[in-house]
Structure formats: structure tokens, C-alpha cells
């Protein structure tokens, strides 16, 4: 598989980050760590917001989020993603879309 730095891609985008108010949250980090085998959010998120840490934990940083909904839809087994749109006006601002 080709190595791709997704941050470099996101760097082209325009965001208005709602600092300190992430619009998506992992409900129970323990479920990710000890129950979820597949951790599919870490490979499916098109913005690489979910990271599989070496110790089995999964961390989420929503700053680069493209607001697609993927992480919510694919967390089928545990429904462990609390997903909302950002507050009006915040988040990704597509220049072209």
C-alpha cells in the first residue's frame, strides 16, 4: 500500500474549528480498547481523525473532520460514536466541494 500523508491533503482545506467543542465523540473509549477488534474507524475515516494507538486505544481528533458521517455508519457493532454536525458556521468550509 502506498504511504499517504493525509494531513498534507487536509492542509489545503479551509476550516473554522470550534475550539474545545468537538462535534463527534467516542462514547466509551474502553469499548474501543478492549472490545472492538476491527477498529474500522481508523482505516475508513477519510481525514484520518481516528488513530489506533499502540496500546489498543483509539483516539479521536476532529479538527480535520470532513463531516462525512462514515465513522458513525461503520461503527455497527458497538454504536460507540456520538455524532453531530458542528455548530452552525463551524467546521469544514469547502471552497469548491
Amino acid at each position, binding site marked *: 500500500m502506498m504511504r499517504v500523508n493525509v494531513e498534507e491533503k487536509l492542509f489545503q482545506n479551509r476550516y473554522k474549528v470550534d475550539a474545545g467543542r468537538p462535534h463527534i465523540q467516542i462514547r466509551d473509549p474502553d469499548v474501543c480498547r478492549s472490545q472492538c477488534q476491527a477498529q474500522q474507524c481508523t482505516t475508513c475515516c477519510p481525514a484520518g481523525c481516528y488513530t489506533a494507538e499502540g496500546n489498543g486505544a483509539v483516539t479521536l481528533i476532529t479538527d480535520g473532520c470532513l463531516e462525512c458521517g*462514515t465513522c458513525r*455508519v461503520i461503527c455497527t457493532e458497538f454504536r460507540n460514536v456520538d455524532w453531530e*454536525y458542528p455548530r452552525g458556521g463551524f467546521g469544514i468550509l469547502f471552497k469548491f466541494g
Partner: protein
Amino acid sequence: MHEKFDTIVVGAGPAGNAAAYTLAKAGLSVLQIERGETPGSKNVQGAILYADALERIIPDFRDDAPLERYLIEQRGWLLDDEAYVGGNYRAEAFNRPPYNRYTIVRAQFDKWFSKKVQDAGGLVICETTVRELIFDGDRVAGVLTDREGGAIYADLVILADGVNSTLARKAGFHPELKPKDVALAVKETLFLAPEIIEPRFNVKGDEGVAIEMVGKITKGMIGTGFLYTNKESLTIGVGCMLSDFAAQKIPPYVMLEEMKAHPAIRPLLEGAEVKEYVAHLIPEGGYDAIPKLYGNGWMIAGDSAGLVNAVHREGSNLAMTSGRLAAETAIDLHAAGQPFSAANLAGYKQRLDDSFVMKDLKKYRRLPAALHRSPHFFTLYPELITLAAHQWVKVDGVDKKSKEREVRRAFAGRRGWLGMMGDAFRLWRAFE
């Protein structure tokens, strides 16, 4: 805000704009709520605009809509790892006005459409996210926004809030999307000077080309790639079913980069500068995945209703058409002094059933299941067909009969005649 409107439209994409424009023009009071900074700032499309659907709403849209290029040529490619077999359809008929298909840039197009809504008398507020619907018994009575004192009331709420449709799910109108019913697409916009685009794609002036691709680029997943010409940019993207992304664990941006490096694609992008990277879901579950479309005080249109024809890559036109039909249903009831009850709004479903929207979706009803059952269309067949083409074209001293035998053996050996017949049958039934 304690004002009450005839109608509230949530979302300013093609579905919401078509609905709000049609309602406002007919004189109903309309409040349209959009979460983006401006209409379009959250929205993603390839983007091909099908003129017909818009023409039925704004007949003279060509006068001032931000259109990129009109398409005179459609290319279809079947890709193996290092090769492709393709066909072009180019017709002079597409080079005569009124043009049939255009490339657009959604951030600009949605803003233009929204201006039309406002000119028609619709009230549009942006930077406002609707959090949930307000109910009065089982009737939708308004919406709760994230603004201070954010409850707003109306006789009718039209949900045109796109594929994630957080509102319909919270209200229990439809369940969570299934990964097998939704595609994830990633795409980039790349700047390239028109002087380079035109000779490279064999077009001039405002002419444009669309390329659709199937094959190894999607790594065995059900999906397609595309490359479209805008005026001064190219857009390239790839989308696959979410269930496949989850199973195969290939990040979407890796798929996109590998596609861009394909020897058939790379030369077309040479010198182009990436300006944006986006991602969006597409509801591709087809007819059988369509949720309930109306109820007491509400209707749902566009992507939030799952109205996408994945086979023909049509979505915005189904969105505009459903938005318009929802509005026309409301306008007729309003004129007749009838309430927006579930029984009365059933007329919306009837209008959709009578239109190309439901007829087309019904026609391809079997396709999603057929593709899930025969993933070979995306891997093995492109490989075999490029092999056959390779044998046909390459001159190497091997006699033609032996070449033919090798191709036939490859087909039979890799899938088996029975398997291929099964695939062909399923495909034929799905397109029937």
C-alpha cells in the same frame, strides 16, 4: 423568534433550494435553514449538473448560473493495474445549445441557487444547525436550532438535509444507514490552466469531457472513479461502498492517490495543483433502501430520502426534482385550504412514483444486490478484458487462434463458465 411560517426547509443543497424556490415563487412563506457559512460550503458533488431538472424550475438558468463546461464527450474506462480498455461517446449534438450536461462547482452553484430563493422571497438563514424537530403529538410543528431561542414553527417542514439526515434519524423516521447501502467518495479539485486542459482533453472553448472508471482502481471494492473537466480545474475522485472499505481496510485517501498514479490517469493530471480534498457519503442502497417519505407535517427530499441513481451517477437531479415535487404538493394543498396531514402529503409519494425518480430507481432495484453478489465486475472482468484487448492488439508472431484459445482459457480458468453465466444473468436481470 416566535414567528410562524407556512413552511420550513432544512438544508440549502439542490433538494432544499428547489423546494424553497418553488414554494417562495408560489407565494408561501418559507424559512430555509442552512448550517454552512454560505449555501454550498458543506456540499460535495462530482459535479455534473443535468440541465433538464433545473430547467423545469428555473428555465433561464443558463443566463447567470455559474456553469463550468458543457459536456460534449463521455469516456468510460475499464482499468487493470497498468492498462485500460475504454470507449468514448462524443456527439456534435451535445455541442449545440441548449446544452444537456454541465460541470459545476457546488460551492458556487449552491450560492447562486440560494440567491434565486431569496430573490423569489424566501428567507434564508445560514450558519444555523437544526438540532431536532419539534413535535406536537405526532405532527411535526417546527424545528429547534442551535441559535439562542432557537425554536421556530411552521405548518410544514421539508427535510432536505442530505445523506446523514440526522433529523430524520433522531425523529425515528428512518433507521441508521447500513454500510452496504452507502458509498464513501473522496475527491480533489486540481487547478490547471484552460490552455492545458483544452488540448489535453481534446476540447475547446467551454466544451468539456467526463471520464467514468471501473476496475482495479477500487481494489476489488464495489465502486467507481471519475475525472471531470472544469473551466480552470479538474476534479478527480473515487467512491466505494462503505461495507467494502470497512472490510478491506484500505484508507480512502490511499485509494485516491494510487488511482492518481495509474499510468492511464497520471499524464492527464500532470502539472495540476491540488487545491482541496473532500469526502462525502452517497446513498446508493437504491429503491429498497428508500425510507418513508412523508408524514404528519413533514416531507423528505433528495439524499436524505436516499434518492440517488448510482448506475447513472445521478443525484442532484433527483434531489431537485423531489424538492420541486414536495413543494408542488404543498402548494396545491395550501391553495385548496387543506392541512399538511400525512394522508394529504401522500400526494408527494404519488408524484415521485409518476416521475423518472422512482421509475429509474425501481428499474435498477436488483442492481445493488447483484453487485454485492458478483464483485468480479470490479476486479476479474477488467483484468480479463484488458488481457483480451492486449492479445488482440499485440503483434508477436503467435497465431490468432492460439491467442483466442489463451483468452478463452483465462476466462474459464479464472471464473468458470457457470460463474460467468451467473454473473451475466444477474447483471442482465438488474438492468432489465
